[in-house]
């Protein structure tokens, strides 16, 4: 409360009585309605507290007369977003993969939708941009496809997966472990031959010897010149792309005791439109055929 109200000689106004180190404040009264507006906002805050979730209780909280919750609001927003997506997804479901790719509107939608689905489901193995990782996670951005890189091939691979127990149509290839079949010297020779396919052989004589071993054991799956055989999922050995690494030691290891990756079948886990968008999206990485 003001203590000492004085009349200021210069202005003729009274002071508020507040004083700080000799500095006094003139009383310039505000109109009363200004104060009433403050009271009105306080009253409104009470109304607000009644309408919306506000007061904490011992078990839970007061839920407000409107029953509004942030959780419910987000559910409604998601529902309305899904409703907006529905016509596009219906069109994608109805269209063939090639039609989606040819239609700029659907293509843009598939890329946007595919990007999200890819990040959620595929990026863990194939990398955030489809770059893959050496050690069994195939890159999707390059032009080397073990099981084919057309839209249809990619779609089939996503739906059924690879070497899994979920889908009867899963793509399966099985490379025998040659550790118990071939001698160490033979394995060394055939590795030299494989290196020679990309002009990297270190021992020409061993490579020549290896050619025979290759012709007897490997040709049916990897092709005469190491070009790979897609029908059985035999990877190409004559290019710069190596799923398990392309050094001699890595090649020897893979011949001796091959590793083979597994990809789940997404057919039952993702809906048809999402899988189609994924196929189109992966195809736009640039390696698509």
């Amino acid at each position, binding site marked *: 409360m003001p203590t000492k*109200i004085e009349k200021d000689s210069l202005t*003729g106004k009274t002071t508020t009585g507040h004083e700080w180190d000799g500095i006094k404040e003139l*009383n310039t009264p*505000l*109109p009363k309605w200004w104060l009433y507006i403050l009271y009105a906002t306080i009253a409104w805050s009470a109304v607000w507290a009644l309408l919306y979730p506000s007061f904490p209780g011992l078990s839970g909280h007061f839920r407000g007369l409107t029953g509004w919750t942030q959780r419910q609001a987000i559910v409604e927003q998601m529902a309305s977003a899904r409703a907006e997506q529905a016509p596009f997804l219906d069109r994608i479901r109805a269209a063939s993969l090639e039609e989606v790719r040819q239609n700029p509107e659907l293509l843009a939608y598939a890329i946007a939708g595919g990007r999200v689905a890819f990040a959620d489901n595929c990026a863990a193995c194939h990398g955030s941009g*489809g770059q893959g990782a050496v050690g069994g996670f195939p*890159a999707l*951005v390059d032009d080397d496809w073990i099981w084919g890189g057309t839209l249809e091939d990619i779609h089939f691979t996503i739906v059924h997966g690879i070497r899994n127990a979920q889908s009867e149509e899963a793509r399966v290839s099985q490379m025998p472990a040659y550790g118990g079949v071939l001698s160490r010297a033979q394995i060394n020779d055939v590795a030299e031959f494989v290196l020679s396919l990309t002009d990297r052989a270190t021992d020409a004589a061993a490579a020549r010897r290896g050619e025979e071993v290759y012709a007897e054991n490997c040709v049916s799956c990897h092709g005469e010149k190491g070009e790979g055989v897609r029908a059985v999922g035999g990877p190409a050995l004559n*290019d710069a792309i190596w799923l398990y690494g392309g050094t001699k030691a890595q090649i020897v290891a893979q011949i001796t005791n091959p590793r083979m990756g597994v990809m789940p079948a997404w057919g039952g886990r993702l809906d048809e439109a999402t899988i189609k968008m994924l196929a189109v999206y992966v195809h736009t990485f640039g390696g698509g055929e």
Partner: protein
Amino acid sequence: MTMEAPTRARPAEAQQSPQGSLYAKHVKVYPARVTGRFRYAKWLFLVFALFVYYVTPWIRWPRPGSAPDQFLLVDLAGRRFYLGPVVIWQDELYFVTGLLILAAVALFLVTSLFGRVWCGYACPQTVWTDLYLWVERRIEGDRNARMRLDQGPRDGAYWTKKLAKHAVWLVIAAATGGAFVLYFGDAPTMLREILTGRAGSWTYAFLGILTFTTYALAGWAREQVCTYMCPWPRFQAAMLDENSLVVSYRAWRGEPRGKHKQGEPWEGRGDCVDCRQCVNVCPTGIDIRDGQQLECIGCGLCIDACDQIMDKVGRPRGLIALDTLTHLQKAEAAACAVPPGPARVALGDAATAERRLIRPRTIIYAGVLAAVSLAMLVAFAMRSTTELAVLRDRAPVFIALADGTIRNNFTVKVWNKGYGEPTYRLVVEGLPGATVAVVGAPEERPVVATRADGVATHRVHVTAAHGARLSESTPVTFVLKDEAGRTVVSTASVFLAPKR
């Protein structure tokens, strides 16, 4: 600086609170009707401003395709600002910012030259308050009639007049809010929707808010908006100096004031006859004779009122005038040499003949105004309606293909602010022999389609020539070329390759 401290207790002090209270009952102001130069200018500007405000949304401006046909339109959903032939996108919002900066500097300049002309003439609060006062005067009569009405009995006539006044006010308020929302949508469509109850809830919300604020601020709050709410009177003092023209009472000429009967001599007294006309016409209810004060909005109506009185009593006009503090001080110094009376008036007038409008402050404000205007003009003239943005893929940064060639993937966005849909050839310079493929283009050829009044996004694969010796990072330029091979727009990026 600058502002004279009030020399006398103001009538507003009648508003003084009971001892100790920080709040006081508001004392209603009843501005009287006045005629004269300043009032005329104020009417002219009022009509002009209201005309512009209400008519602008209705001006049509045909644009091709599905683009709106409204001359001035703020399209919030589409994030476009339409002004005649100019369409500003959200990424060019700096033009709007520039306009606001221009407006602010222009306001500073005008204030430093002529005082608060914005407050007195152009501010929406002033314009609508003036309009509301005009309605009030037409229905309830002039100052004295209104005061009598408010103090008189609450009879039928009282309620009829009040009801009529508030009804008209509300209609004006609704028209104000209604016109405001029309700036944000197609005016004819919106008006039809508003009237038939089919407009969106946001439209009604803003219409309601604007209706309420217009009615409350122009009808009820009036001068209190300027006195208590508006920040501008608080810091405009920084623009004013001793050479700014402000509405001033020439105390050296008016004092000592007092009643004057016809035929009495003017020797030995001031020109002010203390008729209080200047107070009666003041829209903020102050006495200008107390000196420059925060409440004064610089409208000059007191000048009109005083000039009329001076004409009547046969003294020269200009007892209250647009004058500068320098003049007032000079005149006071010169005039004090002689006793009050006509001789003093002549002496004081002679001392204040010249005016100093050009001074460092106004030169700087004008310079800033010119510089900002020029910068905006240049920016606007160099504005392109086609823009190109290139975003490199970050994972992976490059791709090694089966034969060892290196590819980089990009996302290319083409802004097309026109209404045609040209197709451009996409050329990547700086990488001899490289191939460019655009996903979705026929046969993946390096052509990019555009979207009229929109942004087209393309996935682009750039593959270096087989066996090309590449450094880790090669600067490249993406160029859009039209059919004639002319460069439309280009932007720089880099092509990345593995370490050799």
